[in-house]
């Protein structure tokens, strides 16, 4: 099994979710994060104090998937989340050693 971590632009979340649904991915976990990277952020000024962070709001998606489905998930995310502009984000894939569904105690692919 694989553990997929995607960092995307917040307003792309809905599109990505729909694309993944179409692929049969039922579950995922989402969180709000801040991203640093090549993309530059807006400058904020408060009474002369200037803050030009490049800490930008991003959304992180985590999906546990079977080995089969994982490559398609990565591709789907990559396509749905792309705006072809800097800061679109990344998809990372890690190996997943085990998965358990809390409700039933099922493990492995059926737990996903």
């Amino acid at each position, binding site marked *: 099994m694989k553990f997929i971590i995607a960092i995307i632009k917040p*307003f792309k979340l*809905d599109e990505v979710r729909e694309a993944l649904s179409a692929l049969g991915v039922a579950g995922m976990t989402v969180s709000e994060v801040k991203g640093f990277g090549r993309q530059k952020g*807006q*400058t*904020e*000024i*408060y009474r002369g104090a200037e803050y030009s962070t490049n800490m930008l709001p991003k959304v992180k998606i985590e999906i546990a998937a079977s080995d089969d489905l994982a490559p398609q998930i990565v591709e789907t995310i990559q396509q749905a989340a792309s705006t072809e502009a800097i800061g679109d984000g990344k998809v990372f894939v890690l190996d997943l050693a085990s998965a358990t569904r809390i409700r039933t105690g099922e493990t492995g692919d059926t737990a996903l």
Partner: protein
Amino acid sequence: MIRKMIGGLAGTGASLFAATAAFAQEAAPAATVDKGDTAWMMVSTILVLMMILPGLALFYGGLTRTKNMIATMTQIGAVACLAMLMWVMFGYGLAFGPEGNAFISWGKFFLSGVDASSQAATFTAGVEIPEYVFICFQMTFAAITVALVLGSVVERMKFSAIMVFAAVWLTLSYFPIAHMVWAAGGLFFDMGALDFAGGTVVHINAGVSALVACLILGKRIGFQKEIMAPHSLTMTSIGTGLLWVGWFGFNAGSALEANGSAALAMINTFVATASAGLFWMLAERASGHKGSALGFCSGIIAGLVAVTPAAGNSGPFGAIVLGAIASIVCFYMVTIVKPKLGYDDALDAFGIHGVGGIIGAIGTAVVYAPSLGGPGAEDYEMGAKLVVQVMAVATTIGWAAIATVIAMYVAKAVTGLRVTEEVEREGLDLGEHGERAYNY
């Protein structure tokens, strides 16, 4: 002491008193100022400011998304400030100047001739208030009306465009309509239209203008696709409370005196609103949903809008019924009709102020009847008054629509009107003002 012939003669309110007031104006040799009236009118003025800042700013701001919160609040504040400056420069002259016709007046530009000892008439013969107080009270009405219009265009209109729009719109729409409604010699005033505290000039005017403005401006990106839930119903609730509190300045203040007429306006502003707040929730239940907090707040505002023209022109139970009806109609308008028509009146400035204002203006002719507990005279003819009210409403709608079209296209020509797609996505707080509302 300066006496004025048109402006300030009769300030606001039920025009039936007008004949008396006008008569008194000529006869009474020594008009006096009661400090109780002055105190009350200063308080009322302050209350209307509180309706704008922080009241309306919170009500509207809470309904927007986080990324547009501070932009919305600042837009409201800035157009209110602009309205105040325009008012003392030429707005007061255009609405309440010493010379004029049915549509507009002139004179007293830059408040020439007015000083701390000038007085303005009320509806009672021989009773006056300091003219500066009358000017301030009316000034706050101009300020809140233009701010109300913004409810339909938030989250996508440029700040500069809003300022240009406001300047043109106040000049073409607000000042003339205020003159028509409230100045002796004004069109509606002379028709005998009933409008205690500004149902026409404030709410119908703002609501219709909001509708036209958002049609010209276009929808927000993602409208009816993305989630656009209010970012803070807490703020909207605070705003609702402050609007209700402040509205007593608006409605009871429009009596221009601390008297029984103000007291009547006060009780109506309580009960119509209470009724409307609860009836919106009941309407939600009746259509199969939960009674909601935003529904309650929306009902409160709908009730306040509807009772505005009726405040001193109704008995309490007429007001309760009027509030209930306005609330239910606005509910259907906002939740059922609007989504079908698909225009993007972002915060329902038309759905509540426009629709509620129209119901209030027409309903006032009904609840005014003495047979329904209203303060009308025994020989009150409801049919005739209904015709007058409908004419005033129709004229206001037409006038406001045209003025808004002009103002929006001027703003477009000067500023480009809409923010870029990128700024809209990122939010106007960052894009237009370089700030975030919250840095938790």
